[in-house]
């Protein structure tokens, strides 16, 4: 078998382990069904295998390590959606996929199907190190300094079944990027890692700790500026040991690493990590250039060949077709190879459900990946899909293929590109529904010309304070709250996930759904009316302050 482009090639050890784990879970399911295991005993076991019980059914969360899939894996996900679910899947902000209508008794079979394509649901839940996320343009973007996938894979191997870290005080999320433009929300993760090349060419890692959203949103603080590659694992190990030993376990809301870092301060945390490092056997954790090279060799490098006129062909096609041109403007990113381009496929059709894809669409994505991008697909932390290496002269063909299955929405980074969690339509923890208000906003701003006119503006929606929809990090954020049995939405503005990470501030009293949609429309009008040439929503907000926006939002209330 050839090595897949984009992700790590499993070997026998990986595959045997997955089979053993499935057999173990199958036994646990049997014992649950015959009553040998009570629900209380079984729940942590099923969660370790990514299986939640939601409002209407079980939900299975499948890991997509650093968000990268090959087409055979994508086809398998489509098949699972068709055969075991209701013909669709939901891509999440943590680069996973969730199936919403799973039967407990089918789960071992589903896990077996996943294992056939080297996939699983391990560590997608529970108080362990979760799926490591990475830049969705990894290995492709022109602005990238270090390809983060090799180290993401090293972290995946280090964190998978790490015996010391399977019962942490709380869940633990790591993101890694190798671009100066943070595309992974590094400062909103328990650990965020930004890689850059050092003087000797070997990468250096800037490490943030204690970021997070949820009930207590915190921007991660820099723990180390320049960790050398050889010490990356030792450093992470030490950070986790300090957390594991000192993180609170008495109160679930105070158990994340962010609370510990806030409580003792980042300097004290750094000292504790350094003390741990000083007494660790560093040799054991040393990441040698040979070890890194061995992992790197398990990733195939795409052969980027394009005709000399690829760029000219694209330019001409854009000139001839304004609709295509609009899509290229919003949905592509500059590739490191001048003959190629990165295409982002929006899973946010106007009025649709953010992040959902039907099995037919999933199947088509696999075909298009084979035809246009070396059979490789990435899932973004904004619930979209990326084809990383598309030849410029074939981009229009791809766009036409996407149009046939309703996947050619031109709205990436625009107001229609809404991030939303499942909310009260599915989620047992929700206060309010997130999807219907996302659909109403999507429909209100359906016109892609209007969206382009409005420019960069992100709306993030969570159905409760757990913040799965990253509402704190939205330029406009919506949080669903329950007011005496009614669904209300609290509006925040000014959040940002990337380089200038910021937590949104609350604009005023929570509003019912329809009034919230109207208030957002007025916020946008206020911005359009008062922006100076070339200013984005965030820039106008920064220049004017919140007051004019608050007045606009609440004027009719």
């Amino acid at each position, binding site marked *: 078998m050839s090595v897949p482009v984009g992700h790590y090639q499993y070997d026998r050890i990986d595959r045997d382990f997955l089979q053993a784990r499935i057999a173990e879970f199958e036994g646990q399911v049997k014992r649950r069904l015959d009553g040998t295991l009570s629900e209380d005993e079984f729940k942590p076991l099923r969660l370790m295998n990514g299986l939640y019980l939601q409002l209407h059914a079980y939900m299975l969360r499948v890991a997509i390590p650093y968000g990268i899939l090959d087409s055979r894996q994508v086809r398998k996900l489509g098949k699972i959606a068709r055969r075991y679910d209701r013909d669709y899947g939901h891509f999440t902000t943590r680069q996973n996929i969730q199936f919403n209508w799973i039967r*407990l008794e089918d789960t071992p079979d589903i896990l077996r199907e996943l294992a056939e394509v080297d996939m699983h649901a391990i560590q997608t839940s529970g108080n362990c190190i979760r799926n490591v996320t990475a830049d969705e343009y990894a290995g492709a973007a022109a602005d990238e300094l270090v390809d983060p996938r090799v180290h993401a894979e090293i972290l995946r191997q280090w964190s998978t079944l790490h015996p010391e870290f399977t019962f942490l005080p709380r869940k633990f999320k790591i993101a890694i990027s190798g671009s100066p433009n943070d595309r992974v929300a590094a400062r909103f993760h328990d650990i965020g890692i930004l890689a850059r090349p050092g003087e000797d060419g070997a990468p250096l890692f800037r490490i943030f700790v204690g970021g997070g959203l949820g009930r207590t949103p915190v921007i991660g603080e820099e723990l180390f500026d320049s960790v050398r590659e050889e010490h990356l694992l030792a450093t992470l190990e030490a950070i986790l040991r300090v957390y594991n030993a000192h993180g609170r376990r008495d109160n679930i809301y105070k158990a994340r690493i962010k609370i510990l870092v806030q409580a003792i301060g980042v300097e004290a945390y750094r000292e504790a990590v350094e003390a741990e490092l000083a007494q660790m056997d560093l040799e054991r954790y040393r990441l040698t250039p040979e070890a890194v090279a061995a992992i790197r060799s398990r990733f195939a490098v795409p052969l980027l060949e394009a005709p000399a006129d690829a760029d000219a062909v694209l330019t001409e096609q854009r000139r001839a077709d304004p609709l295509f041109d609009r899509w290229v403007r919003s949905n592509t990113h500059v590739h490191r190879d001048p003959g190629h381009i990165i295409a982002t496929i929006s899973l946010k059709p106007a009025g649709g459900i953010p992040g959902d894809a039907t099995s037919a669409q999933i199947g088509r994505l696999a075909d298009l990946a084979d035809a246009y991008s070396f059979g490789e697909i990435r899932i973004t932390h904004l619930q979209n899909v990326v084809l990383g290496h598309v030849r410029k002269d074939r981009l229009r063909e791809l766009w036409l293929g996407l149009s046939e299955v309703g996947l050619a929405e031109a709205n990436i980074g625009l107001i229609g590109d809404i991030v939303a969690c499942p909310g009260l339509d599915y989620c047992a923890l929700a206060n309010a529904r997130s999807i219907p208000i996302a659909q109403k906003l999507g429909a209100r701003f359906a016109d892609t010309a209007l969206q382009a006119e409005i420019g960069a503006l992100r709306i993030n929606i969570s159905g409760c304070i757990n913040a799965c929809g990253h509402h704190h990090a939205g330029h406009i954020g919506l949080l669903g709250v329950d007011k005496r049995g009614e669904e209300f939405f609290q509006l925040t503005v000014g959040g940002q996930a990337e380089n200038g990470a910021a937590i949104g501030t609350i604009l005023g009293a929570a509003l019912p759904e329809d009034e919230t949609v109207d208030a957002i429309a007025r916020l946008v009008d206020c911005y359009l009316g008062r922006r100076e040439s070339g200013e984005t929503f965030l820039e106008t907000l920064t220049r004017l302050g919140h007051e004019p926006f608050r007045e606009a939002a609440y004027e009719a209330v």
Partner: protein
Amino acid sequence: MKRPVRLEPGQKLVLTANRLLDGRTVWWREDGAWDLRIGYAVLLDADGAEAELSRAVEEAQREGVVGVYDTAVLPVVPPEPVTVREKIRAHGPTVHPEFAVETAQ
């Protein structure tokens, strides 16, 4: 343990759970069986509910359900849950009309 449900005048209680095998939402019937349709739920008064709830919890494993609890409804036909959450459990996700749950025969 869950807080006791506060009933407004005119409201009743029903018992609900999820089916162990497939997680589907079910409602407690007069005959002690669990039904997908809220139209078959037995309506209980606050006084009667406690005993029924303990019985249902005790029999949960044998009846193949998990997470038994009580929730308030308006005693119309079919009974209409008071909270949005339980309405959605009774009728299915609001964003997929094609998955609407039957509430009666």
